[in-house]
């Protein structure tokens, strides 16, 4: 009781609150807010990364909206995000529901297995999939050949399928992470709800649809934010697997930033693209927050 009182006193003391939050706030300001503000400031300059640069107002933003790479990058980002949502959240949910079922055997092995790719290095995973996607000796085309299915593809060089193929690699690797979040979400729902539904004659999958999934709104909110913002800002898999090519086929907004800053030395313009990416990610987060508003799912 004494402890509770002390806690209450501390929480009502604004100085204490400030003292405890200040370090985190300072670190956040230093590593997030300051760079974002710097990028915003620099986006109004023609700047090569060194020296002061020349103030050009919103010229970089005008150029950005006229840049044909923007449309391609947005399209690729959307496709990438879609693949992540389908495979990481869709499949992750199914697997989480299966693994949460006490009747399923070998759940521990499955849970560990799903998470293994997450701890592997991205470079290793990309190299592995480059080999799997190899059109001549790769596992996928060989499998199609073995089954007599005429669907052999140039997975990483075909402009039509390469972005999906690359996104799938990300989805495959990090599905385990989303799975663990979703699994924790499923397990956090009190079993009584399911028991009550079963007593009322509801089937297992219908009960999941009506009870489990709506009650996981908060978890889904986080998972969707993670998947969609990762998709919009995808980069490393493209860099390793195709260098963004052929040509600029697999460019995303982050690849645009990389190209303009580090290849063209147009840091001012790259800052404008990064601010656009930040705004887009915030917008996506805002929309997801609205869609998964807890109130909507509470009853």
């Amino acid at each position, binding site marked *: 009781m004494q402890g509770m009182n002390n806690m209450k006193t501390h929480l009502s003391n604004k100085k204490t609150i400030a003292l405890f939050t200040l370090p985190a706030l300072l670190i956040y300001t230093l590593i997030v807010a300051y760079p974002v503000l710097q990028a915003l400031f620099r986006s109004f300059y023609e700047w090569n990364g*060194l020296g002061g640069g020349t103030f050009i107002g919103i010229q970089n933003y005008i150029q950005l909206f006229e840049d044909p790479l923007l449309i391609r990058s947005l399209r690729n980002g959307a496709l990438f995000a879609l693949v992540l949502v389908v495979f990481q959240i869709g499949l992750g949910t199914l697997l989480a529901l299966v693994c949460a079922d006490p009747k399923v055997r070998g759940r521990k092995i499955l849970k560990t297995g799903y998470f293994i790719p997450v701890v592997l290095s991205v470079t290793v995973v990309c190299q592995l999939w480059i080999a799997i996607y190899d059109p001549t000796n790769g596992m996928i085309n060989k499998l199609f050949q073995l089954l007599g299915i005429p669907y052999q593809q140039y997975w990483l060089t075909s402009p039509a399928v390469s972005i999906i193929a690359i996104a799938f690699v990300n989805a495959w690797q990090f599905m385990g992470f989303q799975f663990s979040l979703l699994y924790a979400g499923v397990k956090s729902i009190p079993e009584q709800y399911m028991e009550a539904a079963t007593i009322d004659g509801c089937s297992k999958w219908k009960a999941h649809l009506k009870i489990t999934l709506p009650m996981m709104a908060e978890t889904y909110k986080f998972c969707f934010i993670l998947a969609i913002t990762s998709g919009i800002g995808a980069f490393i898999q493209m860099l390793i697997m195709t260098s963004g090519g*052929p*040509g600029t086929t697999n460019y995303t907004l982050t690849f645009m930033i990389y190209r303009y800053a580090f290849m063209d030395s147009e840091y001012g313009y790259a800052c404008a693209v990064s601010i656009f990416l930040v705004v887009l990610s915030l917008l996506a987060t805002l929309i997801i927050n609205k869609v998964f508003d807890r109130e909507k799912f509470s009853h």
Partner: protein
Amino acid sequence: MKKKKVNIIVAMTVFALSLSACAKDNNANIVPNETASGTAGSSTAGESNEITKLKVYLKYFDDDTKKPYDYAVAELKKAMPNVELDLDPWQQDNFQKLKTYAATGNMPDIYDADYGLIKAFAESKNIEILDNAQATKDLLADFNPGYEKSLTAADGHTYAYSATGTGFQILYYNKKLFAEAGVNAPIKTYDEWIAAIKKFKDKGIAPMAIFAKEKWITNSFYKGLVTREQPEGYFPLEQKGLFQLPDPYKLASKQFEELKQAGLFDPNATNTNYDQASSLFYTGKAAMFVNGQWEIYAATENLGDDVDWMYWPAKDEETYENMKFSLNGAPAPGGFAVAPTSKHKELAIEVAAFLARKYAEYQYLQKANPIVSLKIDQPISITPPPMMQRIIDEVLPNIKGYAKFNESTELNNALDDNTQNLVVKGFGNKQFDENMERILKKINK
């Protein structure tokens, strides 16, 4: 308690002082020399009995970069015993590390610079102008004719000392596979090239291995076609008011497309790296391979007498003969540059020039590579590979010219992207022409 506090304060003070001493040690670049004789060397370093350390940021990651550096350092020890180089190995990171050094005021004394970096550093004053240095005048006097241009940037200043000559791209071919497929070498015309592709494919031989995962090689391939019609390469594309892609460039994109349609490239070419492509060629699976003349050594080592090179085919035999000595390569300013912030600027300039000389000397004497920027008085001690001998006998005395270097990074990047796209099915020459015209409208307005 009081004693404990005093002890802590004393300990902290000692610790802080030792740290600052360490920092001073790191920054100090002049240390007393107890062993150096001080008899030879530069005017700056040779007269005193102190060793001057220069921080250098140079390429040092494989035999081609390590051996010339080691050779130059050994020679430097003899010529300037009081100068020591402190190597910070160059990173393949588009100069990001060096730019960070520049932004934080921590520049090395001497560094490797290409033209893109020179432009950025000239603007931000992170590169020394070497126009009036005595070393520049001395080097110019010893430059091989034609290479002087690589010493001067577009703004008329000298920023770096180049050691290498101008590389150029050639087509390597496997003589055995050519004979097997009944293809006569060299292929001189474009029609012969198309016919040869069919013959190779009929025999189950890959016509060409190309590491098109790297965009510069598809760019070079396109430039090889362009230079048969326009020997200046891409240079004429940078003209105020030029918005239409001129005919030689359209013809080259059309030829590129038709070669692709005929099956010159593997459909997976844009995902093929150098190791994979060269392995296809060296294991006798591909009949041709495109790369610079520097590949001669590796090609000879792998294929011995079965490999030779040919000039770029042209639209007809007359053009082929007229243009074969217009080489597909462009001299660009670059090489050893000096930071204006160097505490030993004069010495650094002298050492940068020395390194350029010694790197050239190594290439010439140890690798029998005559394509170096500087004249070397000593005779080549080893026998050059036959393909290099052909270059020495046949090409070097007859060079009509190199393509001219073009300034625009934007144009170069667009060419990189769009030529790589040309290798892929579904992207045609019309699309290439349109994309390039969009870039021309942007850069030439």
